[in-house]
């Protein structure tokens, strides 16, 4: 087993949980990520079904066990699974899809924050141009938060998961905290 000690994107050894008024920011350090892209002329549906990997349509997130996924670009998804069981998520997916797909490890490319608040929309409207109120549950989109390209997935009126560039984790967190204090 790996004997190197992991460090979170915020530079700690344990993921952060912070609150700003009614908003709770939970750093998710327990999610493994990989990109899954269709190779030309291939059809992944069979293998996906077999492996339990959802392949949702544009702007959608779909949860299954052990895999969940959201659409990022035509013929490409970001697939996530529990880190504990799938630290080697790319290996798992390669095994499942073989040469039909291109798979790339993405776990540490992102810092992931779960944002929860009764009226989360009031915070998000200060951060990005997503129409969070109108968006359906499971809406997944790329957006910009304070100059940072992020993915945002709506898990409910009061819950969103934000995937930001790992190296900018502190700047992203700061933006969320300031906006929350300002808005709530």
């Amino acid at each position: 087993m790996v004997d190197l000690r992991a460090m979170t994107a915020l530079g700690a050894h344990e993921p952060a949980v912070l609150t700003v008024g009614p908003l709770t920011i939970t750093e998710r350090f327990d999610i493994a990520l990989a990109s899954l892209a269709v190779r030309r002329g291939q059809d992944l549906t069979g293998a996906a079904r077999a492996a339990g990997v959802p392949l949702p349509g544009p702007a959608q997130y779909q949860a299954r066990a052990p895999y969940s996924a959201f659409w990022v670009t035509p013929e490409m998804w970001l697939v996530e699974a529990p880190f504990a069981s799938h630290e080697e998520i790319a290996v798992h997916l390669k095994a499942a899809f073989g040469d039909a797909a291109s798979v790339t490890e993405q776990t540490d490319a992102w810092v992931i924050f779960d944002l929860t608040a009764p009226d989360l929309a009031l915070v998000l409207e200060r951060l990005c141009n997503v129409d969070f109120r109108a968006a359906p549950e499971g809406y997944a989109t790329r957006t910009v938060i304070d100059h940072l390209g992020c993915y945002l997935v709506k898990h409910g009126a009061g819950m969103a998961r934000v995937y930001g560039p790992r190296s900018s984790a502190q700047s992203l967190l700061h933006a969320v905290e300031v906006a929350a204090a300002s808005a709530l």
Partner: protein
Amino acid sequence: MIIHHPILGPRDAQEFVYLGDAGLINRPDGMTAGIEAFHDYAYNRDNPAGEHRELWYHEQGDRSWLVVTRNTVTHEIKKVELARDVARAQGRSK
């Protein structure tokens, strides 16, 4: 501006990066075309005051290159296509 992405619907143009005239799709073949052809391809533009087919890249979105038909006087957008579809329709392949 708002660009109606063929897959994602209306998106703020701020999410996109602009390249220019969609003619940039029509790159000559370097093994057959010469400097003159590439010079015209790389440097000369119609630059119309009116309808303009142009390339936008959804960098802060789904990374699709789009061909947007936009009026350069009114900024009205008439049509938005995936650049890949346009390229294929123009006979580009590998």
